[in-house]
């Protein structure tokens, strides 16, 4: 059954991808990409990767699509007819694809528990992590403890992206003067938004702190919280949003998040452990792990929230500029 669903979803993905190749309407391309992302999230669920699915839905289908739409608003939605022949790319792709197919021939069978990938390192995570780290969600254990350095890097990547977008697009100026609504006439929208935004924020907090037990964690929480503010900015206008969450504050928050994470690692040094060693943070190693994971997840959440939001601010300020012009 699971295989069948998998196959159907993969087939839909293939159709979507093919459609994207031939479409010239970029708006449709972006929407299809959103669908593509969402379908892959479904596949991830089907393949037991709930955390990944959550992230993919929030990031790929959510944030990435919003950013792409924002870009389209500034650059136009039509792709121009392509004059040069696509023969060379086709050739490159066929060769690369053939190489990959060649590579699959010696691959271990799909789903087999005897595969090397499932036999060597992973069993320890599955068997020991509930005792060693003390969390039921093994993904969180691996993410935040065994491979915490990867995650620190990931946080730095988000931070770097924020730096990049800031340097390219800048942040909106805080304008005290005219606070005009983006969608003034949409009364229904405004009412519902006011109702929903607090709910979203609560949900974000839930995801943030429930990540140890179920799917979720700082990353998803940060994205969801940012989405709440993005919704606010869309409905009530960017100027108002920048008054609620000031761009300057975002810069500080984004930095602070990384610092919180790194400081947790450094704390390990001072307590006599290695960098990012949480065992030494408390007398009981498992308690130490708990403290460490909660703090760094918080750090991730803060950075991701601030980074995503400032990226959105960057794009939105450009859009406003374009409107004024």
């Amino acid at each position, binding site marked *: 059954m699971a295989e069948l669903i998998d196959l159907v979803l993969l087939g839909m993905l293939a159709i979507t991808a093919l459609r994207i190749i031939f479409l010239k309407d970029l708006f449709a391309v972006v929407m299809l990409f959103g669908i593509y992302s969402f379908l892959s999230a479904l596949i991830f669920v089907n393949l037991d990767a709930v955390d990944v699915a959550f992230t993919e839905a929030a990031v790929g289908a959510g944030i990435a699509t919003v950013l792409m739409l924002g870009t389209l608003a500034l650059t136009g939605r039509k792709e121009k007819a392509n004059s040069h022949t696509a023969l060379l790319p086709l050739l490159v792709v066929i060769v690369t694809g053939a190489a990959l197919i*060649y590579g699959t021939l010696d691959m271990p069978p799909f789903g087999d528990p005897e595969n090397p990938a499932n036999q*060597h*390192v992973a069993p320890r995570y599955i068997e020991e992590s509930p005792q060693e780290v003390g969390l039921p969600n093994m993904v969180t254990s691996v993410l935040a403890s*065994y491979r915490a350095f990867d995650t620190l890097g990931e946080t730095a990547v988000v931070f*770097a992206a924020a730096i990049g977008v800031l340097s390219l697009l800048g942040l909106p100026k805080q304008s005290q003067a005219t606070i005009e609504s983006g969608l003034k006439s949409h009364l229904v929208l405004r009412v519902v938004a006011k109702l929903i935004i607090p709910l979203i924020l609560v949900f974000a907090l839930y995801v943030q702190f429930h990540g140890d037990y179920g799917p979720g964690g700082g990353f998803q929480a940060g994205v969801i919280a940012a989405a709440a503010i993005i919704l606010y900015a869309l409905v009530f206008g960017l100027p108002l949003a920048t008054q609620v969450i000031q761009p300057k504050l975002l810069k500080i928050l984004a930095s602070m998040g990384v*610092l919180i994470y790194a400081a947790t690692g450094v704390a390990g040094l001072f307590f006599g452990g290695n960098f990012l060693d949480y065992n030494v943070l408390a007398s009981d190693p498992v308690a130490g792990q708990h403290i460490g994971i909660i703090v760094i997840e918080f750090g991730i959440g803060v950075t991701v929230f601030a980074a995503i939001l400032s990226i959105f601010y960057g794009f939105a300020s450009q859009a406003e500029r374009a409107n004024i012009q």
Partner: protein
Amino acid sequence: MFAQHFPVLPIVLPLIGAPVCMLLARSQLAWLFATLISGFSFFISIVLLLTTLDQGVLSYALGGWEPPWGIEMRVDVANALVLSVVTGLSTLVLVYAKQSIDKEIDRNQHTLFYTAHLLCLAGLSGILSTGDAFNLFVFLEISSLATYTLVSLASDRRALTAAFRYLVMGTIGATFILIGVGMMYMKTGTLNMLDLAARIAEYDSNRTLNTGLAFILIGVSIKLALFPLHMWLPPAYTHAPSAVSAFLAGTATKVAVYVMVRFIFTIYGAEYVFHEMGMDVILLVLAIVAIFNCSFVATVQSNVKTMLAYSSVAQIGYMILGISLVTSAGLMAGLLHIFNHALMKGALFMAVGAVLFRTGSADIKAYYGLGKRMPLTMAAFTIAGLSIIGVPLTAGFVSKWYLVTAALEQQHWLIAFLILTGSLLAIVYIGRVLEVAYFKEPADPTDTTIKEAPVLMLIPMWILVLANIYFGIDTSLSVSAADAASKWLFQPAADLGAVR
């Protein structure tokens, strides 16, 4: 007290430094702070280099989780050497950057520049030190993202398209690496490099592993701008701010070369890659084509920065050539050239940046008569240029010497000859600039604004120039480090795995 944590500090220091830099908000403060952080990392790298020369490899388990379950930092002579180059050059470039950035980048973006620089440094250090294949990908992306930002900070609009092209190519490369790592993981169930090596050694030849390696090599080749995949590099280096070009040319591609070395020698083992898959011939041919094609293209450029960028691609050809000789001597020559090339290209790009600072142009016309107006800058350019050519008593000569000896040891007479003739093209492109600088009259002799570059730019430039001479004469440090590194890398991969 912190001595045992040194393997991780060159990464963590700039990684912490970056957000702090962002918080500092004042350009001056951020500069000072970034320079200090970078300098401190350099100091640690030197200590690491000396320690590894003395004691061999240093392993550091992050989070206290022993590998292969946790992530491991693994510093040996080879990466400590490259690490010293990267952190050292970063420090010098930061000193240099202060005034160059003032002129080339918008005032309120200065802190962003220093933050991105530190992030880039953290990423590069991470790539070098890590002992985990996926961790390498993460740090690769940190440095790449920071690099795109740094390149796009330039005021020229062409920097934007260059950065975008770099981004697309870089992401394709990173994704290829990701595919390759995935295939390796699929067959071995581990991501730790030593563990991978031990487990790959159990397979004779495996189609999945071969494909994985091929994808990693192609991905890394994009990052290191190996010949047919180099097209992103010249525009990026041309239009980036001078300080960025100086830093990237000396470090980013070199780190990628090191990654290639690491995958070939540490993980798969030279035996597997070169004898089973015959990669040496492919790399050799590409390297030689790179040397000639790009040196030749360099000779016809009118923009000096572009010229140097193409020269960089050609010089990368020399490094790959050394690797593809499949001998300890060849690998040693390649590693040595990583070190020496960072010295000379850093100095050259700094000199070009200084000219850009004063004249506002990198076109060769701006160099008319500069020999008199900016004597120290042009002297630096001359000496570093001679080093590129490979004139005796410069660092460039040393690396060429070892490269040719390595080729001759294998009875590759033709290759040795090609290496030497390749450097003749360097005479042409460096000579063109020197000739107009010293023998042409300036276009506008009355222009008094063009004078010697500021001291803060000259000092790092000349440190590199003097290093070029020093390491051209006293080669004991660089050669012995490269030699130890190549010997270390060249032992069969399975043995490395058995160390633990």
